[in-house]
């Protein structure tokens, strides 16, 4: 079934059903994945999958859902009936009713694919060859002690989504994405430390670009050198310190600590709410700090329309230090006291959409420019110099945290934690390196201590968000390295037992 046939099928299924109300989602996904390990290919897998999910509502607003990975018209009819029957069962059992979708704005659009290359335009043999060439260069990277094992993976995905509603809404879009990931594992003195570096885009062009400009390779080389030092470095003694965090960590902070706390389905239990409503107007920082979520064309997490067929809007969650808005979908934005921004996303056709982020960034009004370099050591020197010149460098300890390794937040208590790849004490002219220490604190404290940013804006920190067990692409960044003043409510872990 081609894309035009899918649009017709989705529209027909949604509009011909005469009971209740339907949202029909059809998704097709093409994916290929190449894995290389220490100079040899480990795997080359492909998949081509499709399916349909139907969300039905009774006239009173009781929901039901049914899905299958079969796109025949007969199955679509059966699923519509099944979803509606479940909705009726749900209504009879006294479920919460929600009729918001009946007033949703109607839309019709077919957004073309932003990829330069068609999914199969570059042959599998050529893709394998390009990935192998890029991987082979890693094997030439030498480290001073111990040994390093290299893995490279290349993934190319093309998701096509078509969403039709009973009111005549029909939108479709393609979210193409691709990524090269290098993972190194350094082993020395019985200590092992892994790290990864990636380059993302929308199609196989990233392989062609990387083969030419070696941008990822240079980042990997610098990172390998840094991690080698980290693996034998001492631990940070736990405490509160002034810190600089890189844009990947800043994305993690914005995503985990603020993004989830303002998603309309989570506002009720969020520390950023009061009586179930978002605390709009809450002053989070005296500084000119902003947090913005925005779907960006060509980005890893691009999604122009919500999974409910509503145009996705950029959201200024925090504007000039003040909590401004949240990520609202059609079903819970009113209840949460925020604007509906088309934030619903679903992992796949069989998932029920939830309010989610796309690309989230942390911006400071004040920014100190830095010379551009791909060399990490040079960048660290530039950061020290920039802070020192402006008398912003702490005299004893001022940590630079590098590399986001994940994080977690409890939205109810407002506690958050993040982990980095390693740390550098910028206050010491020898720039000593330390093992990663968990960065933890309270959501409401952290932005109060954000001061300014250094360097240029970067928004390509990519990842996968796992809210409610649904994995969707996420991304983001910051207006540079983010400077956070010492705050007793924000701590760096390390080893307290020393």
């Amino acid at each position, binding site marked *: 079934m081609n894309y035009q046939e899918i649009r017709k099928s989705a529209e027909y299924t949604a509009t011909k059903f005469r009971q209740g109300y339907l949202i029909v989602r059809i998704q097709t996904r093409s994916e290929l994945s190449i894995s290389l390990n220490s100079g040899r290919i480990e795997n080359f897998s492909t998949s081509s999958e499709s399916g349909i999910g139907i969300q039905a509502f009774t006239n009173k607003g009781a929901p039901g859902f049914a899905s299958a990975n079969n796109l025949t018209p007969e199955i679509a009819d059966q699923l519509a009936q099944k979803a509606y029957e479940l909705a009726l069962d749900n209504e009879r059992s006294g479920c919460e009713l929600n009729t918001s979708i009946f007033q949703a704005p109607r839309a019709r659009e077919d957004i073309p694919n932003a990829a330069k290359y068609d999914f199969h335009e570059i042959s599998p043999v050529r893709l394998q060859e390009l990935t192998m060439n890029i991987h082979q260069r890693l094997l030439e990277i030498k480290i001073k002690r111990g040994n390093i094992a290299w893995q490279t993976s290349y993934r190319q995905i093309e998701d096509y989504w078509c969403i039709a509603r009973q009111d005549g809404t029909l939108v479709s879009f393609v979210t193409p994405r691709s990524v090269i990931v290098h993972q190194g594992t350094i082993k020395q003195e019985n200590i092992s430390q*892994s790290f990864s570096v990636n380059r993302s885009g929308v199609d196989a062009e990233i392989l062609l670009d990387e083969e030419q400009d070696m941008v990822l390779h240079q980042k990997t080389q610098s990172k390998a050198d840094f991690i080698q030092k980290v693996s034998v470095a001492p631990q940070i003694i736990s405490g509160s310190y002034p810190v600089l965090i890189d844009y990947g960590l800043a994305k993690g902070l914005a995503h985990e600590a603020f993004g989830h706390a303002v998603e309309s389905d989570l506002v009720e239990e969020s520390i950023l709410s009061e009586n179930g409503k978002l605390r709009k107007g809450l002053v989070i920082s005296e500084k000119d700090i902003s947090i913005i979520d925005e779907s960006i064309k060509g980005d890893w997490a691009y999604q122009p329309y919500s999974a409910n067929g509503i145009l996705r809007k950029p959201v200024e969650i925090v504007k000039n230090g003040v909590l401004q808005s949240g990520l609202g979908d059609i079903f819970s934005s009113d209840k949460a006291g925020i604007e509906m921004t088309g934030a619903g996303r679903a992992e796949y056709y069989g998932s029920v959409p939830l309010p989610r982020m796309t690309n989230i960034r942390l911006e400071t009004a004040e920014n100190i420019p830095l010379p551009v370099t791909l060399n990490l050591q040079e960048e660290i020197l530039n950061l020290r110099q920039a802070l020192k010149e402006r008398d912003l460098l702490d005299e004893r300890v001022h940590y630079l945290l590098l590399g986001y390794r994940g994080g977690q937040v409890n939205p109810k*208590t407002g506690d958050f934690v993040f982990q980095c790849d390693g740390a550098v004490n910028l206050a010491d002219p020898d720039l000593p390196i330390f093992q990663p220490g*968990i960065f933890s604190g309270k959501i409401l404290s952290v932005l109060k201590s954000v001061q300014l940013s250094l360097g240029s804006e970067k928004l390509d920190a990519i990842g996968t968000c796992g809210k409610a067990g649904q994995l969707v692409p996420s991304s983001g960044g910051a207006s540079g390295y983010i400077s956070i003043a010492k705050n007793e409510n924000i701590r760096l872990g390390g080893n307290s037992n020393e």
Partner: protein
Amino acid sequence: MNNSLLETLLDVLNKAQIKPIDGVKLKGWRITLGQSQRINLGVKNDSAGSVYTPPSYSGRESGEVFLIWEDGKCSRSRVQNTVGGEKHWSEQLLLWRLTAYEDHHKINIPSPEKMPEVQIANRDIFNMLTTDTSYIFGQQQRIISDRPTKALTNASLVASWVRNLIYTSTGIAADYPESRYAVSWSFDSQISQGFAERRFPTAEEWGGLWEESVYMYNLLQTRSQPITKDTVVILAPQVVGQMLDQFILPNFQGENILENQSKFKAEDFHKEELFFNEGLSLIIDPLQPERWTSYILTAEGIPAVRTVVVNNGHLLTPYLNTKDAKRWQAHPTAIPMGSGGITINHNQSSSWLEKIKEIQDGVLVLSVLGLHTQNPVTGSYSLAAPSCLRIENGILTGRTDIRISDNIWNVMKSKDTAYAFSQTDNHPYIITTTRPENL
């Protein structure tokens, strides 16, 4: 459901063994398919069947093919039924051939072996899915009606029935069902509890789990005394499960050991090094009836066996799939289906109900933040634990928040670490020598 995808694939692959694709014939193949039916219910923010957790039905038929060509190259692809017909499968075969890669491990398709008798399908679940769903709706209602009134409650309920089809060119032709039932709930995102097996819970199991979670939740509403320098840290079974996921599973995976990405080296196992405390054993046992982590065949067609990976502190074997077993020159072992698939035994373990009475000054860690970010190889962790229960004079008293820093390898080596079991949990409580900090 019918056999159509299987029949189509058998036809397509058998023909490719006779007629070359892009000049090369297929030498061997494996088809792993699942035909599944599933129903989900949920509770979101105290509301049953809300727009985010509506009753949901899913029917799928999909799987994977693994191919070996006559020139030794391999292909791997996800597959599902399609309306594309013969043209689609011709294109797929050509794509699979074009994506074929040199497999330097020279993996074989396994030959048929005797299948173990493990009960992994319970007809009650099938009947519930196909005839009367009132049981699962009833459990959903029970969560709503019995929840603590002040708690914001979320819950998930899922029942599934899968028909597994594993066929190979070497003669494996397995066709068997499996069932699953899982229910989990949380109060204020602080207390989580649940049941996950291949059957429905008994009334006794349900009652025990529910009452324990409500009791813990109520205790968390009261602040207790801060910890002292002598406070003993006890990891609750849920946290122990997360520790197994983060530290034990990756370090015992055969590939990670062979690729030098594990705490252990191959020779540590060959020499049966004493690495853990001498009373400690780790076992993967997929043969237990109606357990969530039990199975009959792996996706590669390898029959389930009981595998002891650590015996009385000594390293015996990693867990090995077909490829890693070939490199290890051993038979494939059991594969753990998540942390629940690994059992911790200690020859001096005790009952938790008895053990807690001996603890004068302790703190029970119910959950931690950020464990997944810790280095799995070094085993060191430094974690915030914002929901803990204080133990004073053998009794759980109230909430406290702490930070814990330690090393899992040291904890599991130490003679001072103790293990205590309760009837409602698969994993033990681990009584550590970790020194906590107030958060």
